[in-house]
C-alpha cells in the first residue's frame, strides 16, 4: 500500500472542510506543550496518596500504640533493673526516654514493616491496579518516577520514626515529666540538649529505614504483588537481624543493613560517639544507592504489561 492511498480524508460529505483544516496542520511539528521545570507536584501527590490512605493511617496509629503501652506499663509498675533495653530503667527519671524506648522496641519489626509496606506498594501497587501504565503514558519518565517514589519512601520513614518518638515524648513527659536527663554515660544534660538528642534519634533511624525502603523499591519493581514485596522486605530485615546474632558470622555483621540501627543509643552519650553513627549512615547510604540503581537498571527498560 502506498502513502497516496492513505491520505487523510473522511468518507462522508459534510466533513470535507475538516480535511482542509488538517492538511494545513500536517507540515508543522507537534505543537509542544510548554514544560514546567522544577516542581514538587508529583512528590506532593505521592505523599497525599500515602498519607491519605486509610490503611496507612491505621498503620501509623498502631505504631503510636507502642509508646503509649510503654508509658502506661512503666507508670503502673516500675520495671526491675536489668530487664529490657537500657532506656527503660531511665523512663521514670525523664519521660523523654519513652520516646527512645519505643524506637528501640519498634525497630525490630513494626517500623521495618511500615516502611516495607510503603516501599512494596510503590511500584508493584501501581502495577497491580494498572495505574502504572497510565503514569508512564502521561508521560512520567521512569527515572523520575523512581526518584520521586524513593523520596516519598524516605519522607514516610522519617515521618514514621518522628511520629513514634513524638507520641513517646508527649506520653512520657505527661506521665513522668521532663527536666534534666541522665545519659547512659552517667552525665547530666539540660532539657534543651535532651530534646535535641531525642529529635536526632528518629532522624538517624528514619534515614536507616530509608535504605530498607530502597531495597523494597527494588523488589517492588520485580513483581506486581505489593504484599509479596512487603513480605520480602520483612523477611530480609529479620534475616539480617538473625545473621547479626550469629557470632560465627561476625565478619559479616558490619555489612548487614540492620547492624548499626541500635547505634542510635550513642546519641545519648556525652559527648556523642559519632563513629558508629557515621558508619551506620554510610551503610544506609550505600544500601540506598545500590538498590535504587538496581531498581533503575531493572525498571528503566522493563516491559509494563500490567
Amino acid at each position, binding site marked *: *500500500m502506498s*502513502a497516496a*492511498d*492513505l*491520505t*487523510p*480524508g*473522511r*468518507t462522508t460529505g459534510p*466533513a470535507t472542510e*475538516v*480535511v482542509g*483544516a*488538517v*492538511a494545513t*496542520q*500536517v*507540515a508543522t*511539528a*507537534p*505543537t*509542544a*506543550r*510548554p*514544560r*514546567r521545570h522544577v*516542581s514538587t*507536584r*508529583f512528590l*506532593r*501527590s505521592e505523599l497525599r*496518596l500515602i498519607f*491519605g*490512605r*486509610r490503611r496507612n493511617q491505621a498503620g501509623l496509629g498502631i505504631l503510636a500504640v507502642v509508646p503509649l503501652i510503654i508509658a502506661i506499663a512503666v507508670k503502673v509498675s516500675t520495671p526491675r533493673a536489668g530487664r529490657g533495653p537500657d532506656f527503660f530503667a531511665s523512663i521514670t527519671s525523664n519521660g523523654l526516654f519513652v520516646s527512645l524506648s519505643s524506637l528501640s522496641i519498634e525497630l525490630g519489626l513494626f517500623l521495618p514493616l511500615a516502611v516495607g509496606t510503603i516501599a512494596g506498594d510503590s511500584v508493584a501497587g501501581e502495577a497491580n*491496579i*494498572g*495505574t502504572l*501504565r*497510565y*503514569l*508512564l*503514558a*502521561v*508521560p*512520567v*519518565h521512569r527515572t523520575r518516577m523512581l526518584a520521586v517514589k524513593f523520596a516519598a519512601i524516605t519522607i514516610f520513614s522519617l515521618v514514621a520514626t518522628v511520629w513514634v518518638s513524638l507520641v513517646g515524648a508527649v506520653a512520657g513527659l505527661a506521665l513522668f515529666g521532663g527536666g534534666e536527663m541522665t545519659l547512659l554515660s552517667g552525665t547530666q544534660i539540660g532539657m534543651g540538649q535532651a530534646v535535641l538528642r531525642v529529635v536526632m534519634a528518629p532522624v538517624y533511624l528514619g534515614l536507616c529505614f530509608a535504605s530498607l525502603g530502597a531495597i523494597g523499591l527494588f523488589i517492588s519493581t520485580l513483581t506486581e504483588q505489593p504484599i509479596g514485596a512487603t513480605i520480602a522486605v520483612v523477611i530480609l530485615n529479620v534475616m539480617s537481624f538473625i545473621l547479626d546474632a550469629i557470632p560465627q558470622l561476625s565478619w559479616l555483621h558490619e555489612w548487614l543493613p540492620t547492624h548499626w540501627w541500635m547505634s542510635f543509643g550513642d546519641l545519648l552519650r556525652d559527648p556523642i560517639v559519632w563513629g558508629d553513627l557515621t558508619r551506620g549512615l554510610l551503610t544506609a547510604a550505600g544500601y540506598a544507592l545500590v538498590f535504587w540503581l538496581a531498581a533503575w537498571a531493572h525498571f528503566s*527498560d522493563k*516491559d*509494563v*504489561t500490567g
Partner: protein
Amino acid sequence: MTEALGDAAVSDFAVATEGLTKRFRQQVAVNAVDLLVPRGAVYGFLGPNGSGKTTTIRMLLGLIRPTAGRHRLLGRAMPDHFGDVLPLVGSLVEGPAFHPYLSARANLVRLDSVDRHADPRTTRVRVDGALDRVGLLAAADKKYRAYSLGMRQRLAIAGTLLAPRELLVLDEPTNGLDPQGTREVRHLIGSLADDGATVLVSSHLLSEVEQVCTHVGVMHVGKLLTQGPIAAVRAVSEPRARVVTDRPQDAARVLRELGLTDVAVESGLAMGTLGKLAAEKIVAALVHGGVPVTGFAVERPSLEDLFVSLTGEGFNVSG
C-alpha cells in the same frame, strides 16, 4: 512504509510504524507491523481478541520495548522523543485503571499532577471540563471503587481529555458501556476528530468502528492484514454475481464470455466477479444462451464478511 518516504511525507502520519515486532519468549505477539495512521484520520484498529492490537498500542506508547522495528508518533522518532510527544497523546490502554479509594476527581488530579506539562492553576477547570465532557461531573466526588464498569470507562476517557491532544489512542473505548454510552463515545470520537485530532481506536466490534472511522486496519495473529481508507478496504471485495441453475457449467461459460473474472462453479451454482459489467445484462445473456436461471443475485460483502474472511470464523483466541 519504505525508506523512500521523505521526512515531509513521514510527518503526514500521526502514527507510522516500520516492521514493529514483539516477541514474548517463543510467541510472536506482533509481527512486522507497518501501521500508518494519517493525520486527521479516525483509524479503526480491528482484530479479534489476542490478535496483537493492545501489544502494538503498548509499543506505540513506550510501555513495552519492541523486539524489532521502529515507529514515529506525530512525525517524531520514538523512543527518543517520548518526552515531547506523549504530552500531546491521550491514551486509554487495556481498560481503565485508577486508585480505588480516591474519588474520580482526585484520580484525575493525580494524573494531572504527575504531568510536567500541566499548569496547576488550571487543573480544577480542566479536570471538571473533562468530567463534564464524559457526563461524570455529577459523580465526580464518588470513590472510584463505587463506579460501575461503564463509569470507569468514561473516567478513563476523561483522563485522555485533560490536555489538548493531537492524537488519541483509545484501546477498546466502548468496553462495558451500554448502548447509550457506546453511542456517546462514538459521538465523542467524532467531535474530537472534528477538532482536528487524530484518533486511533482499537476494537473487536465492527459495527462501532464502521460508523465513525475514515480508515481501518485489520490485525490477525500479530499481523496487519490490510489497512487503508475504509472505502478502499471495502472495495477490495468486489461485487459478485451468483447464478442458481441446474446447468452451472454452461452458466459459467456464459459468465466467462461476458468478461466476469474469478468464475467458480459449485453444485447448482455459478459465481463470478462483476467488474464493470452491468448486472442486468447477465440474466439476459444467460437466457439467450439457453441456460435456465432459477435464481440470480449480486452480492457485496459487508465489512463484517470481509473481516471474517480475513481473520477466520470462530471464538478461538488466536495465539
